[in-house]
């Protein structure tokens, strides 16, 4: 990849892919600075890292009409903690394994719409983390419609040590079909890439509408291979969804 111009970054919030309505992103991870200066510090401040925090600032263009669009999604998730997944490049969500940052965030401030006469109607958003920010991967790509039960691509994310977690975000982006189409996604792990004896680590709630979920499982987990499985029911069902996983 190397150095890059930001042309196709990705932002998923709740059940919305905001990439097509966004044009600016800033994601920060920062820890408090705690002073440990003492008489033997040689006259210079000494510091350690304290509690960590993350924040997101994003700008984009106003659109409304469904939960898949920013205004509806923002309104539905006001003052709520929602899953957020961010990628620097578009190939992050076209195949499993692409780089993603993920967490869950509380949306604290939003410019609903704005602009002067002749301007494109625009929004901006500020959100604060409600969990640690994880550096992870796409575990299920967002643009592949799923119409039946299947398993995803195995990913070697490593083990989860004691005190750490496997974080998992599910963004259900579109739902089609009749007879209450339902998507039930799980995350399994195993000690081998063939998943000969997988263990279910995460069970997302059954999704029947555009929505988002964030969950995590605590270590220790010695398995190093991880995969998303999904079950689809209904009549001519079709789902678009993104799953991101990360260990932090």
């Amino acid at each position, binding site marked *: 990849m190397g150095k*890059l*111009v930001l042309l196709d970054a990705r932002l998923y919030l709740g059940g919305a892919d905001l990439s097509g309505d966004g044009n600016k992103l800033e*994601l*920060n991870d*920062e820890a408090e*600075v705690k002073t440990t200066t003492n008489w033997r510090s040689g006259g210079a*401040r000494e510091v350690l*890292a304290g509690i960590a925090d993350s924040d997101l600032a994003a700008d984009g263009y106003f659109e409304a009409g469904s939960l898949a669009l920013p205004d509806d999604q923002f309104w539905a998730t006001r003052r709520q903690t929602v899953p957020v997944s961010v990628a620097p490049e578009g190939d992050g969500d076209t195949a499993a394994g692409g*780089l993603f940052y993920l967490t869950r965030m509380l949306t604290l401030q939003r410019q609903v719409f704005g602009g002067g006469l002749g301007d494109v109607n625009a929004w901006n958003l500020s959100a604060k983390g409600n969990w640690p920010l994880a*550096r992870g991967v796409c575990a299920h790509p967002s643009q592949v419609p799923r119409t039946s039960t299947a398993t995803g691509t195995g990913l070697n994310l490593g083990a989860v040590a004691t005190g750490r977690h496997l974080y998992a975000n599910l963004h259900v982006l579109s739902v089609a079909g009749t007879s209450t189409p339902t998507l039930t996604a799980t995350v399994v792990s195993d000690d081998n890439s063939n998943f000969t004896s997988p263990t279910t680590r995460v069970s997302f709630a059954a999704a029947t509408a555009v929505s988002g979920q964030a969950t995590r499982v605590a270590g220790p987990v010695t398995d190093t291979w991880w995969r998303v499985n999904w079950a689809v029911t209904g009549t001519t069902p079709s789902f678009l969804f993104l799953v991101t996983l990360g260990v932090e």
Partner: protein
Amino acid sequence: MTKKVLLDAQLGIANNDLTDHTSKIELNDEFEDKETTTFGSGGAKERLGGLEESEISITFKQDYDDNSLDEIMWGLRRQVVTFACRADEDAVSASNPEYYGSLLVKKWVPLNGAVGDVAEADVTFPLSGPLQRRTS
């Protein structure tokens, strides 16, 4: 060394040479301003230097390749690690001193920019312990 334009400044953090990803370095050597003004100060403030509180601000060009900048800095978050920087790629000398010490990676910026921007990360790290200088 005469006055010079910064063309090949060097930066290493935790023994990682990040020169190829660095486009700006600002190293500030600063002390607390401790006022000692008294009635005998003749109407002007008097002061002493207190604790050293230095910091380094860096602009990186982001890189998400395996084992490259983003992965390196993500792994150093919240740690106090060593750093070294100098103005010129030539060997350390009296005319090309190297500044070094320890810094706290208190912040990382995984993503920042608008469509069409070069992906960059602007960060400022406080030093932990004294800033040091060597000329050989």
